């Protein structure tokens, strides 16, 4: 079922649904990532519309509230060229879907990502100042990529052999949009560890937006990146598996997934700006471990910790150890009443080899904090360096370069 068909059919019959919610729920949990994603998004929209209609009937909301205040989107068509941005084909004032599926996917998925950042973190667009979300589709010929240009999102159609069109996956679009968020916040330099953090943040929030749209808990989430853009015949589950880095694919044309999940396997390479898409597996796995240890929905606690770390604590040259330290510190600040959360974050970073194995002093200190009477809350001015992370960072990568580990074609 195409997402825009749902919108089109809502006209004139706002309470009738082509596919009943219970069936959508089953589809959302199905093994087919593309189907599950679309069904989940439709289900969420269905639920929000039902709730919204209930509020309307009681007079709690005015029809004007239907608009997502501050959301502005534009989609351009490059028509197979590399000229950006291309021709404008859909904007916020266009209530009707475009005839082009890629245009609507870019439009809708940008909207869902904007909703996520707005509703969960109170962020107003990538720059937190209402920046219009500009997307260009059909970039280049059989272009096997999606990227953030520094100004906008750009999507290729894929070669049809390994990749399908990049607009079809919500996690891909949320990944690219998060590069924009990073650009306007921590400005993580796109090289080596800071670059890998930049990539990891995009995967972390890319997966989180997908989970939010599907209503998935950390245990229900697949933690895969790019599952929906892989063409039939691709030997693998996705491009990256945040929970199990290095296991996403083993394809005769592309080789094996090279991502490490532990600092001892850090890949030293000159390719890909120092392996930013490879070594991102380490901090991404730390997030998964933290989110799973905390439990529930990833965006409620672990996601907030990572967001505040990105938006307020990190700077351009941050490395893994700095990120680990700041997430532990933020966890303490955000959840002072529950010291176990910071301890779980510290353990996650220890489990991927960025912090020392046994954060016993941290745990001890946190137990003491938990046992102590509550102190009056004061306005936070400066982050307090965490005890474990500050002294226990293990930042020395060990693995040698493997810049050409993928097979040639």
């Amino acid at each position: 079922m195409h997402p825009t068909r749902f919108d089109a059919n809502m006209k004139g019959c706002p309470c009738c649904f082509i596919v009943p919610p219970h069936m959508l729920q089953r589809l959302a949990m199905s093994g087919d990532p593309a189907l599950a994603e679309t069904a989940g998004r439709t289900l969420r929209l269905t639920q929000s519309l039902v709730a919204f209609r209930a509020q309307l009937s009681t007079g709690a909301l005015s029809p004007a509230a239907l608009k997502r205040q501050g959301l502005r989107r534009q989609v351009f068509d490059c028509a197979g060229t590399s000229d950006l941005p291309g021709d404008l084909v859909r904007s916020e004032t266009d209530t009707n879907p475009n005839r082009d599926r890629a245009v609507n996917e870019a439009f809708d998925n940008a909207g869902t990502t904007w909703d996520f950042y707005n509703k969960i973190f109170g962020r107003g667009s990538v720059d937190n100042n209402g920046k219009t979300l500009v997307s260009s589709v059909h970039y280049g010929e059989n272009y096997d990529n999606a990227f953030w240009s520094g100004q906008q999102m750009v999507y290729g159609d894929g070669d049809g052999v390994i990749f399908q069109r990049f607009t079809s996956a919500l996690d891909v679009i949320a990944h690219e949009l998060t590069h924009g968020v990073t650009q306007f916040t921590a400005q993580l330099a796109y090289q080596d560890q800071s670059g890998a953090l930049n990539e990891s943040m995009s995967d972390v929030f890319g997966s989180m937006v997908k989970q939010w749209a599907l209503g998935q808990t950390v245990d229900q989430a697949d933690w895969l990146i790019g599952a929906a853009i892989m063409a039939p015949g691709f030997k693998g589950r996705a491009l990256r598996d945040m929970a199990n880095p290095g296991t996403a694919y083993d394809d005769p044309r592309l080789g094996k997934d090279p991502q490490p999940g532990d600092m001892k396997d850090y890949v030293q390479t000159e390719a890909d700006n120092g392996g930013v898409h490879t070594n991102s597996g380490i901090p991404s796995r730390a997030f998964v471990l933290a989110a799973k240890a905390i439990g529930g929905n990833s965006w409620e606690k672990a996601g907030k910790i990572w967001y505040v770390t990105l938006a307020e604590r990190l700077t351009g040259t941050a490395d893994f150890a700095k990120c680990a330290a700041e997430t532990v510190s933020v966890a303490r600040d955000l959840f002072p009443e529950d010291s176990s959360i910071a301890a779980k974050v510290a353990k996650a970073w220890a489990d991927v080899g960025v912090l020392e194995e046994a954060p016993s002093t941290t745990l001890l200190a946190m137990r003491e904090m938990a046992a102590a009477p509550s102190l009056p809350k004061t306005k936070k001015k400066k982050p307090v360096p965490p005890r474990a992370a500050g002294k226990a960072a293990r930042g020395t990568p060990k693995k040698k370069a493997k810049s050409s580990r993928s097979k040639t074609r």
Partner: protein
Amino acid sequence: MKVIVERSGGFAGIIRRGEKELSALLPEQQTALQKLLDKGASPASTQMGADRFTYKVEVQDVHGSRTLTVPETLMPANLAGIATGL
């Protein structure tokens, strides 16, 4: 005597690499390659944004071996395809 083109980066972060004999290059490819060599290296880090491709171009000829790193924005399309076997 050949040119080896390696593409890294992109959303997928997958490395693709291909090579071609210099004698098998089309005239327009030879011209583009000569221009690249005349211009010299461009640091990939000057590329704006994220998830762009980065190319490594290695030429092996009578002068020896020369390697350039070229950001996607400055890579001639008719040479970029060598990385993926085109």
